[in-house]
């Protein structure tokens, strides 16, 4: 087992016409021994390229990658003591499951055949695929192939596991159970793991820590709840969380924020945070908005709204609200999450309250967070978990 360090790692692709594309820009990451780090970001953000550089499948333009304190920049993939699970599983279609799992040990070690056999059989029974050992990948379901791909990686007993969207080809139900199983397995084996995904649910639920990447630049590294409650910037705030945080563009007028649909009074402490900006993005999570049916507004943080659309998910309702102040054509809608037991119908008149302790403010130009949600009102949240 080993720690994995990325120091100012940069990847520049040069296109045929000489254009240079920076895929990964100066990324620093420290992944401790037996840590589970999730690398998350939208498609094309450079997360897969980063993983492939760690694997040795892409060259590193600049910076260093070290595994267990040893720089591996110039080592071929086979000598890095890593194992990778691919999105397509990448099983060898002409070999049986057993041959697939033995291949790595046969090629990279001098282990005698009976020892390889024993390791493969043990791993297969741990993964619950021992009855599939003599079948070929084409005869297996997607979930079974996924297990074989994982088993093939585990057999190698590597220092670092690299996983490139391994669950994205599974159906939703299987994905949820594999998520749990993978975490469990990683804890048991204690192997340092880097897991790439574009799915923020996987990022939130699986990682000890998550690293959010956008456009090749590392946006934030932290525990899932740190990224959720105290995002570094507008991008992280919008990317983490489902449904996504509501954003409104506002002008700063002293202690008041003026937007197209509403004005918002700031307390003196918060006013100080925004004093350096003319324009800010106002953000609030759907579950932080207080939803009051049949109520009247009491102060400047309450807004009269009409229910536009209700999306029931069973345990909760995602309610789209429109400000009553807006003119009909240019209505701004935002999402509030309310309990699934609450009866809400389209056209209902309600009051939505944006509590000041729950709001996030981001500088409009840099996107940086000026104020994040204060967690003083919720002492039950332990951000380090």
């Amino acid at each position, binding site marked *: 087992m080993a720690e994995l360090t990325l120091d100012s790692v940069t990847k520049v692709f040069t296109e045929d016409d000489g254009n240079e594309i920076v895929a990964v820009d100066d990324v620093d990451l420290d992944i401790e021994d037996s840590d589970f780090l999730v690398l998350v970001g939208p498609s094309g953000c450079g997360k897969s390229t980063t993983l492939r550089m760690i*694997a*040795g*499948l892409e060259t590193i333009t600049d910076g260093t990658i070290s595994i267990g304190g040893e720089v591996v920049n110039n080592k*071929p*993939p*086979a000598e890095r003591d*890593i*194992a*990778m699970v*691919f*999105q*397509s599983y*990448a*099983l*060898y*279609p*002409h070999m049986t499951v057993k041959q697939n799992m033995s*291949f*790595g040990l046969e*090629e*990279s*070690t001098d282990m005698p055949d009976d020892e390889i056999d024993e390791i493969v059989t043990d791993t297969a029974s741990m993964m619950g695929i021992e009855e599939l050992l003599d079948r070929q990948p084409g005869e297996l379901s997607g979930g079974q192939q996924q297990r074989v791909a994982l088993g*093939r990686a585990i057999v*190698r007993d590597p220092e670092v596991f690299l996983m490139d969207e391994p669950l994205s080809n599974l159906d939703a139900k299987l994905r949820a159970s594999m998520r749990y199983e993978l975490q469990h397995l990683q804890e048991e084996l204690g192997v340092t793991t880097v897991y790439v995904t574009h799915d923020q649910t996987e990022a939130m639920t699986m990682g000890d820590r998550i690293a959010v990447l956008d456009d090749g630049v590392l946006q934030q590294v932290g525990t899932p709840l740190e990224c959720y409650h105290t995002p570094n910037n507008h991008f992280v705030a919008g990317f983490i969380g489902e449904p996504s945080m509501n954003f409104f563009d506002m002008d700063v007028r002293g202690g008041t924020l003026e937007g197209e649909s509403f004005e918002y009074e700031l307390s003196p402490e918060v006013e100080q945070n925004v004093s350096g900006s003319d324009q800010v993005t106002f953000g609030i999570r759907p579950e932080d908005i207080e939803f009051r049916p049949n109520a009247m507004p009491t102060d400047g943080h309450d807004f009269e709204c009409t229910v536009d659309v209700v999306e029931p998910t069973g345990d909760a309702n995602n309610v789209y609200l429109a400000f009553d102040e807006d003119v009909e054509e240019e209505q701004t809608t935002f999402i509030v999450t309310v309990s699934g037991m609450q009866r809400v119908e389209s056209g209902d008149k309600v009051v939505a309250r944006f509590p000041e302790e729950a709001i996030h403010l981001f500088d409009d130009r840099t996107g940086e967070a000026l104020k994040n949600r204060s967690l003083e009102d919720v002492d039950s949240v332990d951000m380090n978990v």
Partner: protein
Amino acid sequence: MSQQTAADSDAGLPLKRIGLYAVLIGMIVFYLIPIETGLMTAITHPDAYTGGHPYLPPAPGDISLQPFTNAVDALGQGMVNSVILVVPATILSGLFGSMAAYGLTTVDWRGQIGIYMLFVAGIFIPYQAVLVPLTQFWYNIVPLQDWVEMIAPMIPFFQDYHWKLVALIITHTAYGIPICTLLFRAHYKKLSDEMVEAARLDGASIQRIYRRIILPLSIPMFAVVFIYQFTQIWNDLLFALTIVQFGDAAVVTQDLVGIGVSQEGTNFPLRMASALVAALPTLLVYIVFGDKFAKGVTA
């Protein structure tokens, strides 16, 4: 509703069907008539052959297997030479083509497109343009004949004149590599990159990846290439005339040219029987590799 459509199709289809089958039968007759004529001629006794209606079966008294036995006798040596030529040339061109395609497609290196272009250009070099250089090369530049004469006594069944077949094998292999490379490259482009990367991560070298992953996955494509190359090389006359010219090393196509031709006239039954005998191996190859071939072209 559904009953009505069923009735419609019942009424409409027979006419269409009849038309379709008429065309199909017409085409079968069109394509099979020459072979049928050849076969009927080949089983007629040469003395009874008139050339009047060659496609009709001979009269029972005129049926004879003599043309076939004569053909086998006359072509025996040529058939053996052809097999000595075709089997190694087919396997070598397929194998080298597959290796070249692997190196040019699956392995990544600078300048591979340029090299690949040279391979493609190789397909378009006309045979006629290389005939004189080929003769010069094998007869005046490379002392292949001397080498073969030196080692021939050490190998059983290996005769001095076989040097011409060795030259022919090398020539056909070289000429077949470009088209084989093209065929294999199309196949290798469809293989998953991630699978090859997984093998690299598993510690396999470039050679090992070829042997353990790429080669086993190429079997359907090998069937396609083998059938194609076997037919090409078996049927070739031009290179054989250029390199073998005459003598003991003549291949079956060379023997076929002059068979049954004499001053008294042409022995058509013998010529037809010989043509059928000479074509038999290509037919066998199609039958043996047929199902793999179908997999290869549809893969």
